[in-house]
């Protein structure tokens, strides 16, 4: 069936396609608050494309793991054009070695973190990242329900809190980063033990920060204070006492009831690589939920 250039037919086709798009939009409109009929389709596509993304990320890993700072690379190129030509091979090997060394230190950091905090974790690698054009900060990791990952588990890396699991397929999972505009984390100021809420600013650039609003508005956070997670009941979606970030500036406006502060997250979200999903807490960890709970 050859496609014709008949404008009337063309308008019909496009009209139908626009209608189809709007139908999908309408069906999925309640996606954030409750389950939508499109979720099943999303999971199905995820189960197929997740492994594809995983192998693509693995295949191009030596290239994509190079320090991806275009500015730096550009400057280096101007300075070292001649040297680079002679040392290209050497550089490539060196870069890959750097990545391996870096990853080894990340694994050590994660192992130490899990060890000192008595958390059971599943290590995972980031295999895909949402773009700024989609206005959301989400990533795909290569661990899924087969590894014990399920919705609403905490995701950390060696530096601190990364986010929580939104959706998990068999072999991959989607993680909502704490800097996404939809994310709110309960936080505790390390120095005064005061509680507050950390909201992602949804900044699409790499300069994301979190807005901290304290529950008790008489308390003023101090610049340099560290913030850790407050922890949720049953440790989902957030386990307690994971480092989140540091207070960088404090604002108080008479119009607002609460003091707000900007918190700079410890995790560098633009270069996320190895993360860990907290699947449980080891016995012996003293937490109010575990101590008071009547778990079998």
């Amino acid at each position: 069936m050859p496609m014709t250039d008949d404008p009337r037919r063309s308008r019909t086709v496009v009209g139908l396609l626009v209608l189809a798009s709007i139908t999908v939009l309408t069906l999925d409109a309640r996606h954030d608050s409750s389950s939508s009929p499109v979720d099943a389709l999303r999971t199905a596509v995820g189960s197929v494309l997740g492994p594809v993304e995983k192998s693509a990320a693995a295949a191009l890993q030596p290239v994509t793991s190079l320090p991806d700072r275009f500015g730096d690379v550009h400057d280096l190129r101007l300075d070292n054009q001649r040297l680079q030509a002679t040392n290209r091979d050497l550089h490539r090997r060196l870069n890959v070695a750097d990545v391996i060394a870096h990853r080894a230190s990340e694994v050590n950091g994660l192992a130490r973190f899990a060890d000192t905090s008595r958390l059971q974790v599943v290590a995972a690698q980031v295999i895909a990242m949402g773009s700024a054009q989609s206005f959301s900060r989400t990533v795909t990791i290569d661990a899924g329900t087969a590894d014990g990952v399920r919705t609403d588990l905490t995701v950390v890396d060696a530096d601190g809190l990364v986010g929580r699991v939104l959706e998990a397929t068999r072999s991959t999972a989607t993680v909502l980063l704490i800097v996404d505009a939809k994310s709110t984390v309960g936080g505790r100021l390390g120095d005064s033990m005061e509680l507050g809420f950390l909201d992602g600013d949804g900044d699409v650039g790499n300069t994301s920060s979190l807005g901290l609003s304290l529950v008790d508005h008489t308390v003023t956070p101090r610049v340099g204070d560290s913030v850790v997670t407050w922890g949720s009941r049953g440790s989902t979606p957030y386990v307690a006492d994971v480092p989140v970030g540091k207070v960088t500036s404090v604002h108080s406006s008479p119009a607002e009831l609460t003091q707000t502060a900007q918190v700079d997250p410890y995790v560098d979200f633009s270069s996320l690589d190895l993360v860990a999903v907290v699947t449980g807490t080891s016995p012996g960890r003293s937490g109010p939920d575990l101590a008071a709970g009547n778990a079998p």
Partner: protein
Amino acid sequence: MTRIARLVVVAALIVVTVTVQVSIFSHFSLSGVVPDLALIVVIAAALVRGPDYAAAVGFAAGLVLDLAPPADHTAGRWALSLVLVGYLTGLTKPDGETSVPGKVTMVAAGAFIGTSVFALTGLVLGDPGVTVGSALQVVPRAVVYDVVVTPVWLPLVLLLFRRLQPAERW
């Protein structure tokens, strides 16, 4: 090539493009902005085959972008954007072979329309991540990055769509 085989090739192209966009180009993002390879595929389809074919490719590619992990926005938003991009590009393209500056202009205009429609639907649906300020930051960057990758990516997909054209058209 049979009609089924051509469909399979286009489907494979869409899946590969989306995978490359989310898994590989995410490492080369400029302040979070990644080149819209899928959008360029839709524009190539419009340049070779015209508005209705491009709108259909746009719908399929948009739906995959909407559903492939780590997407978490309301599904259908990219589908709607890319249907419009495909249709409008197909309508406005000059008859015959498009010049190189013409193709670049098509990509820039398509990127502007596509990312703007996506941002607008977010504003209408109340997506907390979309604000007028963030859209004004993202849309121009997306246009620039799409134009930057066009010389490499557009000729490749144009070639593929020309090969896929049914013989009766020649």
